[in-house]
Structure formats: structure tokens, C-alpha cells
């Protein structure tokens, strides 16, 4: 990360707009940073860096409406503390809540295993305040949970990686904290059995909050699957009993564990090594993914770590690359893209000789032309993190 002296740190949205206006007049290129936990790629050395660190106010919290409006630099942990005083939470899984900011989470479409039940920030965001590349402040959406007035720019900026506008604040839907939370681990399943377990859970019409599959070894029977239930006591334990019954019939090995242990897998994979890739596929292809993607990726890395959200088709592989890794990544990306999925390289070792091991995003989608038009509509002079997103957006 950059020398902190060069970082701009506005303390109010108005100050941010004024700064952005100045930068626009000077034609300065810039990138935005929150906690710096989900950035893909490094800002260019000559560009300005605008940190949202001091945009750290909780603007309005309406527990009765289950909504909260916060400035972009509020950390996930700080917001969680405030919401907990009223028995509520923002259902957003990030691995480093002390550092991760709400603005950064929105810009990077951060999510974790609870997306299964609660959706992602694309579902939880209700409104947004932005500062455009030209320094004009604007907002879209609103503070109420239901609103279709105007184009929904709040959901549009989720996952835009700072290439469209600066997010200064957002209104988010929050949920009640669960009465109880309980995880149950089904051990040593092959990828086929992981998928069969998911189908069996659906058949029972139970509603897990999260399903996390962690790959413990190579070969068959390699996944431990943690199923997490949250909610009112009676509902959670009825569902835990249901999983016990399923396991008995199928002679599966299971154990109950604290749900924090299940969620720890996400933090663990982030310290697994200098390379981490996240893949999106059709959920039903999990066994095929194991054979054609996960196994080859794991084999090319030293001390690989793999975890998956198999119910919605996401898996992450991390570790230390070996000399053959770049070629394996390229092959796997080609395979996954052929089936309509994607392979995003979230972190990789520093580029050698200015050339990264692999381009982070992969092949732009068929709608890329529209994305380019949107980029030039919102940022006509290409000053906001140019080249940092898919296809050089």
C-alpha cells in the first residue's frame, strides 16, 4: 500500500464532492479505498488515492424500520456493534470486519456463506449517495425498504470496484439477530455426496442460513460440510434434528459445532497463501467442478485451501503457486467460462516485470459493450480506477 501522506481523506460527503471536483478540474486520475481488504489490483503510482476512512458516521438508524444509513467508511464491525444494541445485524459476511468498510463491501460485492439465506448487498442495499467523477453529488433509491422511484443506481454500483463513482453513504436493510445459532458438520463426503446432501436438505424444506464445504484432503471423501441454522430456538433445533435423521438414514458421520467455527473457514482461506481465486458455476455441477477445476487447481498449489458454498455455486481456492500454476489457471478459466461461469483472481503474487501471473477478471461478458458505454457515461475521461475492472473498464 501507498505512503499514507498521498492519501486524500475527506471527512464529510460535501468535502469529498469538493475534492472530487478539484481532481476533475485538474484531470487527475484516482482510485478509492476503504479498508483495503477486497481490492483487486493496486492503484497506479501516479494516481490520487481517496480513502473513505473518515466518512465514518452512522447517519440514521431506524430499528423499527430495519434500515440503517451509514457513511462509506464505517467498518463492518462498528456497524455490527451499533445494530446489536437494538438486537439487529447487517447480514454481511466479511473476513476482517475490523477493517472492512461498508463502502468497500458494496464496491467489491463482498459476501459470504449467509448469502444463501439473505442474499448479497445487491439485495440489502436500498439507497446510495454518490459523488460522480465530475464532482457532482447525487443519490438514488431511498431510505424505505420498498421503492421503485427512478433507476436503481444503488444496486448498480454494487460490485463496480470504484470505476463508476465514489460511494459516500448507503442505506441498508438490516435483520433481527437470531435467538440461537447452531452448526452441524457432516464429515468426509465426496463432491457427489455434497451435492446429494444439498438436494436432501432442500427435500426436507429446511432453511439453513449457510452451507460451507471445506476440502480437507485430496481424493474421494474429502469434504466436510458445515450446515448453519439461525433463528428462533424451536425452529433451529427442529432443523438440527432433521439433519441428524438424514445422517442416520445415510450413515453419515456428523457432529454439532459452534457456528463461529463454521464461519471461520472464510477467514482461514484468506491467509492461505499469495494466490486466491473465486469461481462461479452452476450449483448442480459441483462434482464436475471438483474433477475438472478444483482438483487441478489444488494440485498446482502448495498447501492449497479450498472452500465452497455449494448450494449457490461458488468455490474459492487459495495457496502458494508453483511454476505450472499460470497455465493451470488459464485452462481452468477456459473450462469454466465455456460453461458460462467465471474465475476471478482475487489476489496473486506481485507482478514480475510488470506482467501479472494472470489477468484477474477473465473474458468480458456479452454485455461488455453496454458496460463500456456506462463507464464512459459516468466517467467520460476515464479517471476513476481506469483499467481496474473487467476488460479494462
Amino acid at each position: 500500500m501507498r505512503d499514507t501522506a498521498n492519501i486524500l481523506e475527506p471527512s464529510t460527503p460535501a468535502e469529498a464532492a469538493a475534492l472530487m471536483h478539484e481532481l476533475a478540474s485538474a484531470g487527475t486520475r484516482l482510485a478509492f479505498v476503504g479498508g483495503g481488504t477486497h481490492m483487486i489490483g493496486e492503484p497506479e503510482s501516479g494516481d490520487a488515492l481517496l480513502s473513505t476512512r473518515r466518512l465514518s458516521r452512522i447517519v440514521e438508524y431506524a430499528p423499527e424500520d430495519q434500515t440503517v444509513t451509514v457513511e462509506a467508511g464505517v467498518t463492518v464491525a462498528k456497524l455490527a456493534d451499533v445494530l446489536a444494541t437494538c438486537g439487529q445485524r447487517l447480514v454481511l459476511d466479511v473476513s476482517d470486519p475490523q477493517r472492512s468498510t461498508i463502502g468497500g463491501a458494496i464496491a467489491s460485492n463482498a459476501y459470504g456463506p449467509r448469502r444463501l439465506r439473505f442474499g448479497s448487498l445487491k439485495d440489502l442495499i436500498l439507497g446510495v449517495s454518490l459523488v460522480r467523477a465530475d464532482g457532482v453529488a447525487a443519490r438514488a433509491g431511498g431510505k424505505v425498504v420498498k421503492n421503485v422511484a427512478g433507476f436503481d443506481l444503488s444496486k448498480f454500483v454494487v460490485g463496480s470496484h470504484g470505476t463508476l463513482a465514489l460511494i459516500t453513504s448507503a442505506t441498508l436493510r438490516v435483520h433481527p439477530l437470531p435467538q440461537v445459532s447452531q452448526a452441524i458438520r457432516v464429515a468426509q463426503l465426496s463432491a457427489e455426496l455434497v451435492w446429494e446432501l444439498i438436494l436432501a436438505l432442500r427435500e426436507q424444506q429446511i432453511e439453513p442460513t449457510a452451507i460451507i464445504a471445506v476440502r480437507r484432503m485430496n481424493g474421494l471423501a474429502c469434504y466436510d460440510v458445515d450446515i448453519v441454522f439461525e433463528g428462533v430456538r424451536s425452529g433451529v433445533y427442529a432443523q438440527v434434528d432433521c439433519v441428524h435423521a438424514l445422517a442416520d438414514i445415510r450413515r453419515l458421520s456428523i457432529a454439532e459445532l459452534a457456528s463461529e467455527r463454521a464461519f471461520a473457514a472464510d477467514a482461514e482461506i484468506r491467509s492461505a497463501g499469495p494466490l486466491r481465486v473465486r469461481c462461479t458455476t452452476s450449483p448442480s455441477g459441483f462434482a464436475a467442478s471438483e474433477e475438472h477445476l478444483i482438483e487441478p487447481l489444488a494440485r498446482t498449489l502448495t498447501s492449497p485451501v479450498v472452500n465452497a458454498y455449494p448450494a449457490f455455486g461458488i468455490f474459492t481456492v487459495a495457496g502458494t503457486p508453483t511454476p505450472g500454476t499460470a497455465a493451470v489457471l488459464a485452462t481452468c478459466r477456459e473450462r469454466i467460462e465455456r460453461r458460462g461461469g467465471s474465475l476471478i483472481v482475487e489476489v496473486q503474487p506481485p507482478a514480475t516485470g510488470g506482467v501479472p501471473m494472470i489477468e484477474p477478471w477473465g473474458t468480458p461478458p456479452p454485455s461488455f459493450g453496454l458496460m463500456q458505454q456506462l463507464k464512459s457515461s459516468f466517467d467520460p475521461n476515464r479517471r476513476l480506477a481506469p483499467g481496474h475492472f473487467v476488460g479494462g473498464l
Partner: protein
Amino acid sequence: MQTQTSGKTALHLRFAAIVGDANTISAVSDLLTYECDGLTGTRVTPALVVLPATTDEVARCVRLSNELHMPIVARGAGTGLSGGAVPSNGSLVIGLSRMKAIFEVDIANERIRVQPGVANLDVSRALAPHGYYYAPDPSSQSVCTIGGNVGENSGGAHCLKYGFTVNHVMGATVVLADGTIVSIGGPLVDSLGYNLMALVVGSEGMLGIVTEVWLRILRSPQKTRTIFATFPSTDEAGAAVSAIIADGIIPSAVEMMDRLAIKAIVTATGVDWPLDVGAALLADMDGVAAEVDHTAEAAIASMQLAGALEVRTPRDAAERALMWKGRKSAFAAMGRIGPNYVVQDGVVPRKEIAAVLREIARLSETAGLRVANVFHAGDGNLHPLVLYDARISGEEARAEHLGGEILRVCIKYGGSITGEHGVGLDKAPYMSELFSDDDLETMNLARCAFDPQRLLNPGKVFPAPRLCGERPGPFVLSSLERSELAGRG
């Protein structure tokens, strides 16, 4: 006259070459059907209507209308309540009602691929044998189409827990303003790049014409419990809703009806609801059986504590269906208590419902017009129905005015002018009260990227016509308004 007739014929023939003569509508008497949508007070006759059957036909129609400089208005079932499908002058209406195929039911991946003309309820019907359903459920769900739902980001009673159309659309095939066909989003949980789907859903037909849609589908819940409760007034009913939510319970739906709405529903449908009450709530709890039993008991306790006069739970599925039929037929039932009505769709923070209803009652009294309220109380989405008699001179204008005043109350309380019906023509003038010029200009940036010529559904959503690359000025009436719609609320 001769020239005009032969001109129309030539136009008819050119489009008929794409979609077939039977699917090209140009006779004035047949065009009447397409003059308006559910906002029946605003009518404009289109130049021509086409009913294409495929994405390719839609694209060819769009390209031809580009060549002829005709604006384009896409249309589903025409049930929209904000005038989003009202044609503009000289426009081509592309009706998607023939595109009603369900292409792919993919239970393993919990998704379904449909054409835009499929009725909302038909999606759930196709899924029912598999134990799945499609969550958004506008009251018009038996006729309204998925394409229309995508255009308007439709909601419904059950979006309190499960979200709106935007939360259930994964991807779409879209014909853009220049006739190109593009696939956006996709069948997976995320797709690379900008979240274009979020822009297209709710764009009211101004960014493209959706010709195929991937929808996310949900496993049916283990159990659903319905509770019907009556209260002395909307104050107690509102307090009950707040208490339920404060308890950490998210019902799948909580609907409120006031005295006048109950009277209309009882008269029209014959449900055995009491008439001598001030308000009623209809709530659904769904999910895992053990949880539903707990939350339903807690909700009943909250209702009783808030002063419920009576709490009923249906004996069987038939009685439950009847209760919901009562609620969903509320708009249609208004005919029993007044010849005409205008409906608004404002949203307020949940905690302000009781205060806002009292303000509405005061405005109603001042205006001398009755207002019935039937609405999604759980998410603060009001549907005040202002009753009037169009035969009485000036009463319609007063009703429109009162509707507008109600929207201003919603804005004052930090809410929105529309929760699910869309802005369309009806609420476009209020957009500049809710948003600044800079806000609107920023939204317009998205439109300019999709449709720089502004050929798709011109005159909707934005309060004044906006060019691409033009700074916004003060509000002015559009030419459409001057020629067709002067004097509306």
C-alpha cells in the same frame, strides 16, 4: 385522408412482413385496446401495434422503427397502474403477450427461463409440481406478465420477506434501442462486470425490451400460517405491525385494510369479515414448521396486546385462499363503494404509518372525498384509493390533486412516491420533489448509455424530457404533456 390511409397501410405492411399480418394492428378500432394501461384516465393512440413471437422479431421491429424514427413502447398485459405502457404520439407498441413460453425449468439449480409474456402466476403453477414457486406476487398476478414485472420491478404482498422482482431476476435477453440483442446477467448467482440487471429491472421499458428472463425460484415452505385480525382503528393495527417486527419476526406478508376497504371487499367478495371495525390485518408467516408455530403465536400475542378485537386463523387451505382472495381483489372491489378511484402507491417508514394515515384522513376530509386504504403494512407501502365520481364535474381533478397531496405527505415523512407501481407518466411530475436535478441527471446517465436517442418509452419516469449530455434545467411541461395531457394532477 387518402394519403394518411395509404401511409398507414405501408407502415402496416412493413411491420407485417416481420411479425405477420395477423399480428400487426393498425385499424383505429383495434388500437383502442392499446391506448392506455391500468391508468385508464390517460390515453394516447399508438401509430401501430405489433405482437412478435420471438426475440429476433422484436429486434427486427425495433430496427425498423429506428429507420422510421418511431418511438417504441413495450407492453405486457397492460395492468400497470402508473401509465408506464401508455403509448407516446406516433409510437410503435410492441406487445409481448404472444411470447409466453416457459423454456427451461431447472430445479437442481433453482431457476427457470421464461419468455416475458408468461403470466406471473403461471410461473408458480409450472413450478408447483416440483415443490417450488416464484416469490413476487403482485395482486394482478393471474394476468400480469413477467416482462411487465421486470419493467416495473413489481412487488406484491409477500415481498416483505422475500424481496421484489429485482431480487429474483438473474439474467435476461434484452433487445436494445438500436435493435441489437444482448444477454445481460445470466443463470448464475453473479456475472462478471457491472450489475446491469439491477438497472434494467424497474427501468419501465426505457433501457431495453426484455425478451427472455432467468428467474430465481424458491422451495415451497414447510408451513404457512395465516392470521386475520380486526382492530378498533388503524392506530392499533399499525401498532400491532410495529410490535410484531420489533419482536424480531419477519412475516412473509402483513396487509392492512381500513374500514372503507373492508366494506368494499365484503360487499364484492362475500368474505365474512366484520363491518363494524376500524381496520383489519391479514398476515402470513411461513418457513420451517417449528419456527412458524412460534412466530405465529408471538404475532397473535402482539396483535392482542395492541388491542385486537378478534383474531382468526383459517381452518383449512380453502378458507386461507378465500382470505387472500379478499385482499387481492380489493382494488376491483372499490366499484362497490364508489364509481371511480385513483390509487396511489406511496411508501413511508413503517414507524410512520399511523401518523401518515391520520394525515391522509385529514386531507380526505378537507377535500370532501373518501379515501380507502388497503396496503402492504409490513413494508410501509400505502395504497390509498381516492374515491370519486367522474360524472360530477371537477371531481376527478380534485381526486388527482388529493392523490398528489398524499404523495407529498409520503415524501415529507422520508418515504417514496412509488413502492411497486412505477413512476410511469402518472408520478413523473413528482420525481423532482423526491430527487434533485443532479440525482435525476445521474439516473439519466444510465439511460444515455443504453438509449442515447431516447426512443424507448419516451416521456416516462423523468419529469422533463432530458437529452443526453444536457444539463438539467427547471421543470417544463414536455411537448407530450402540452399536447395530450395538460391539466393532469
